[in-house]
Each structure stands twice: as structure tokens, then as C-alpha cells.
């Protein structure tokens, strides 16, 4: 036990002495929160809309002003003809092109059927779909107004009016959705990257071998490696949460204790994984590659950007062993919905099982007779 204290003293001394470590521990949460949270967003604003108005009537101008007056669209230069419109889509000067045929106002007057053509750059499918739906809803509104203006009785048009109330994130602020997820990434950066690299460094510089010739026991060495990064990981989480609270006024509905408790379990799982992966690598370069790979897969499949429910079945199966997926869900539940323990008990349970499994795996793999 006393030996463990000496090992810990050495570990903290090395971390505090390493200027990179200190900068990483303080800098990573600040940068991640301040850059990633506002930058990673799916809200589509200010799509470049080019309108080829072949009608040039008061009707067409009104429609155009409705579109460009919304927050979603910004008018780009008007193309002269179809070829011009295509060129604008191709070059990226326009995200969408609306073609208004020359018989548009005649159509509205009931002489022909009014038609509009929309060309969408669908390289980014999400953006294309969202742009399309924004545009059609504005056109629908315009259409309703036209019908009413023509004096048709409202009752004659059976329209179902829906008025949504957005719960848990009433202003549809995308930052509120992202921030709990970014906090998970923060823990991975400390737990998987820094802790793992620290371990592999001991192996690479031969100090591990020197320690192995001493009476230091295997568990003592492992615990002395886990504890410092466990503490720094939780400190970073507090720092990141503080930044989120000050900079983005993130709501926090649930219990802080529950939030930190779940993150602590997650951190243990990640540290177990770091320890395990470090036994597979013989130098820092190898470790970095493997850890990067795991981090990418875990994060992208966790549902941070896209709901896991819309992933293919095998991906959802994979998420059974993806600790990030559990904490991603837990954090959003606790922070935004104010979920209590019984609401997330299943996820917490699975996360605990994973933590125990990873740590067991690591200790078994660490058969270096330390």
C-alpha cells in the first residue's frame, strides 16, 4: 500500500512536470467546448438559392421575396437560363436553383396548372433534404395565402393545422444537443489518449522493465497509472461543463452527482481499454494509431450526430459494446431531460458491465509479471 503511494507520487510529479500534459489537460476541454460545440451543427442556415425567374410577374416576385426573406435562404445571382443554373450548381455558387416558368402567374390565375422546378445540389444529402423541406414549406404557405386571397372560404379547404411544442430543447438549439456529446469526447481524449500514451511510454523507454525487476506488484502499477488520469479526467469534465455553462448557458436539468457518477464509470471503462490496448502496442506510434481507430469508431457510431435508431441493425448490435453510446444517451437524458437514476438504470448497468469487462481484459492481458 505504501508502495502504491510512492508510485502515485512519482506519477503526479511526472504529469505536473510535463508541460505538454498540463497544457493538454487544461487546453483540450477549453478548445473542444469553445470550438466544437458551436461549430458542429446540423442547423442549415443561409443556403444559396438562385432563382431563374422566367415569369417576372408580381406573383413570382412575391414568392421570391418570401423565400429570400426567410433565414434559411440567401439569394445568389440569378441565372439567365438552364445552362447557367446548372453551372452555378456545379461550381457551388448555388446550393439550390428554383426555376419559375414563364406561365407561373397564368397558372395561379387558373389558366394552366402552376408549376415550379427545384434543382438541389445533393452532395450533402442532409443539407439537400433540409433545404428541400424548408423550400416546400414556404411554397405551401405561399400557396395557402394565394388561395385565401382569391376569396375561397377557409372552411372549404380542409387543412390540418399542427403547432409543435419542442420539449427538452424548446428553442431547437443544436448546441444543447451537441454539448453533452462533446463532454463524452473530452473524457476519451484524457482517458484513452493521454493515459494510454503514458503507459506505452514506460514500455518504450524501458522504465517498465526496470520497474518489473522491483517488488512492485502488477495491480499496484496498474492502479498507479489509472488513478491520476481518473482524477484528471473528472477534473476536465468539470472544467468542460463549466465552460459550457458559462459560454453557452447549457441547461442542466438532472443531478450533478448522477452525471459525474456515470462519467466516472465510463472513465474507468475507457482507462481499462487504454490499458488493454497499450499491451498490444510496442511503441507510442502504434498505440496512437490503434487508439485513434477505436475513438473514431466509438464516437461516430455512438449517436453523437445521428440517432442510433436509424443505423443498420448490425451497427445497433455493435453499440452494445460501445461505451460511448451509453454515456452519450445518459448525458443527454440527465442534462436535458433531468432523468433520474431509474430512467437510465439499464444504460448505467451496461456501462458498468463494460467497465468491469475492459478492466478484467486489461489485467489479464497485462501478463508481464509486473
Amino acid at each position, binding site marked *: 500500500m*505504501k*508502495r502504491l503511494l*510512492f*508510485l502515485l507520487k*512519482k506519477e503526479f*510529479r*511526472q504529469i505536473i*512536470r*510535463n508541460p505538454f500534459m498540463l497544457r493538454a489537460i487544461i487546453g483540450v476541454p477549453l478548445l473542444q467546448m469553445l470550438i466544437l460545440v458551436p461549430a458542429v451543427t446540423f442547423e442549415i442556415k443561409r443556403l444559396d438559392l438562385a432563382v431563374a425567374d422566367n415569369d417576372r410577374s408580381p406573383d413570382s416576385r412575391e414568392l421570391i421575396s418570401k423565400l429570400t426573406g426567410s433565414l434559411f435562404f440567401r439569394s445568389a445571382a440569378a441565372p439567365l437560363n438552364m445552362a447557367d443554373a446548372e453551372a452555378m450548381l456545379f461550381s457551388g455558387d448555388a446550393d439550390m436553383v428554383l426555376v419559375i416558368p414563364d406561365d407561373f402567374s397564368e397558372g395561379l390565375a387558373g389558366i394552366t396548372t402552376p408549376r415550379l422546378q427545384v434543382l438541389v445540389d445533393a452532395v450533402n444529402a442532409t443539407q439537400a433534404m433540409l433545404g428541400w423541406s424548408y423550400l416546400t414549406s414556404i411554397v405551401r404557405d405561399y400557396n395557402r395565402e394565394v388561395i385565401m386571397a382569391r376569396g375561397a372560404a377557409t372552411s372549404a379547404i380542409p387543412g390540418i393545422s399542427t403547432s409543435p411544442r419542442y420539449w427538452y430543447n424548446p428553442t431547437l438549439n443544436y448546441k444543447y444537443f451537441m454539448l453533452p456529446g462533446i463532454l463524452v469526447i473530452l473524457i476519451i481524449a484524457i482517458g484513452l489518449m493521454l493515459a494510454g500514451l503514458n503507459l506505452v511510454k514506460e514500455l518504450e*523507454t*524501458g*522504465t517498465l*522493465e*526496470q*520497474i*518489473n*525487476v*522491483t*517488488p*512492485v506488484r502488477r495491480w499496484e502499477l496498474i492502479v498507479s497509472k489509472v488513478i491520476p488520469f481518473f482524477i484528471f479526467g473528472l477534473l476536465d469534465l468539470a472544467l468542460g461543463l463549466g465552460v459550457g455553462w458559462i459560454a453557452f448557458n447549457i441547461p442542466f436539468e438532472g443531478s450533478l452527482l448522477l452525471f459525474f457518477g456515470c462519467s466516472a464509470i465510463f472513465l474507468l471503462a475507457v482507462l481499462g481499454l487504454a490499458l488493454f490496448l497499450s499491451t498490444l502496442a510496442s511503441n507510442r506510434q502504434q498505440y496512437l494509431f490503434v487508439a485513434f481507430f477505436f475513438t473514431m469508431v466509438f464516437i461516430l457510431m455512438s449517436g453523437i450526430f445521428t440517432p442510433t435508431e436509424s443505423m443498420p441493425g448490425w451497427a445497433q448490435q455493435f453499440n452494445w459494446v460501445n461505451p460511448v453510446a451509453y454515456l452519450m444517451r445518459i448525458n443527454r437524458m440527465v442534462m436535458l431531460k433531468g432523468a433520474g437514476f431509474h430512467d437510465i438504470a439499464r444504460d448505467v448497468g451496461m456501462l458498468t458491465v463494460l467497465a468491469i469487462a475492459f478492466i478484467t481484459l486489461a489485467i489479464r492481458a497485462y501478463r508481464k*509479471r509486473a
Partner: protein
Amino acid sequence: MAAVEALNITHRYGRVTALDDISFNVNEGELFGFIGPDGAGKTTLFRIAATLIIPAGGRMTLFGLNTVSRYRELRNHIGYMPGRFSLYQDLTVEENLNFYATIFGTTIKENYHLIELIYKQIEPFRKRQAGRLSGGMKQKLALSCALIHKPGILILDEPTTGVDAVSRTEFWEMLANLKSEGITIIVSTPYMDEALRCDRIALIQKGKLLAIDTPFNIRSSYARKLYAVSHPDRYRLLIALRSLPQVITSEPFGDSVHVVLRDDVLPPEVKKALEETGLHGVSIAGTMPGIEDVFLELMQKEQ
């Protein structure tokens, strides 16, 4: 009781045999050297002795404790200094020493007498990080750290490789001093001149032991009459000697060339033959064989 008993130690890395049926004993308080070129298997052998790897075959005991089954007890009694500097470069001299003292459950003060002579030389730099020490100072720190828990045996893997000549001499003086404290030392080196400072040496080559004896006996075991031939232009001398039919072997040795002559040939004859090739003023005299001579002879015999 022998400090080290190795019996039929064999080890392989994949298809490469690093150690091939090695057996030897080291007496308590002995300074025992392993002499051999790079890749001879010295490091593997020392890592087995240091309980770091399990030999594929054979067994080794240190003070009667098996290196595989009793490794945990043994680790309290081993001072291991690997060939590569393996202390914490970002800790200071003092912190490193203190760290190793404490994890062995002792203090610097308690065993200071053991390391005093060595540590005194680096003590002025005790606040300096180990990574910023010179090669000689690193080596002294590593030895201090290996000694601070008063081990019964020191295992030193090529401690003088990459160290300047003065530090090397100093180092061997320190080892002689530790020996007088009753510490058993096994040390490996590729330098033949260092072998003379050991009580006994083992010549090792390609994972096999060629000979084990005192340096004197090893040198005396050389079967043939050896002559030292010298001339200011040693390179020309060597070329000339190798072209002479009277000469069986000729190997450079320090300032001279060690040669073995055919049984029926006497030194004046060689001198005359050399003069005919244009080399004048050559001196030739009988000499005591060095460790290298024996090593080369044994290597040739092995092949």
C-alpha cells in the same frame, strides 16, 4: 552455495536460437564476466537472470531461488542495470534514487554507504533531470539506483558500452569496490580488455559458451606459440604477414599484430621474409596471448 546456478538454459526468439544449452555457476562474491560480440545472447541470458523472461528450456537459480517460480522473492535481491538507460528521464537524479529506494521499502540514508563512492560524483547534479546527464553520469546514477536496496547480486548488462575510456576505468574500480562489500556481480561486455578485471569469465558466441575460466587460465589455454610483430606501418605489416606462407594466422592486437607461425618456422626467418617485401625494422617477439586470441581460436574451432 553458488550465487547463480544455470543448468541447460535454452531460449529462442521465433526460429532464432538465442541461447543454446548454457550451464554455469557463479560463486558468491564473485565478479563474473560474460564476454562476447553483439548478438551473442548476453542480454537474453541476463534478462532470464533478472526474472524478466522465462527460458524456453533449462533452469536458473539465484541464491537457490528459481528465477521462474520464486521470482517475487528474488526481485528483492536483484540489482539490474539494463544496457539501455532505463531510469525516468523527467525525474531528477535525487528523485530517481529516492523512488527506487522507496519502492524497495528502504531509504537512501540506510544504504548510502554502498553507493557513496559512486553517488558522490553525481551528487552536485542531484537536482538535474536524469535525461540531461552525460553518458558517464547516467551510468553512475543507474548503478546507484540498482544498488540502493542492497541487492545480493548485481546484473549489469554492458554497463560500459557507449561510455568514455576514463569513465570505463572508474566504473570497473567501483565494481571491484562493490565486490569487496560481498556483492556478487555478473557483468557482460564486448570489450576484451575489461575481461581481465573479472574473477572468472565466460566466452559466449552465438548463444553458446565457448569457455569458462579465470582470465589467466583462459589466456594460458592458448595452444600455440604466439608472437607479437610490430612495425610503424601496421596496415602494410598485416598485409605482408598474411601473404607469407610461414604464417598461419595474423590478427591485429593493440599496436602490434599477433601471429602464429608454422611449427618449423623461427622468428628470424619471418623477419627476413618481411624485409624482402620492403618492410625494415620489424620487431618480433614471443608474447602472452590476449583474450581475443583465445576467442578467435575458439571461434574457429567451433566453425
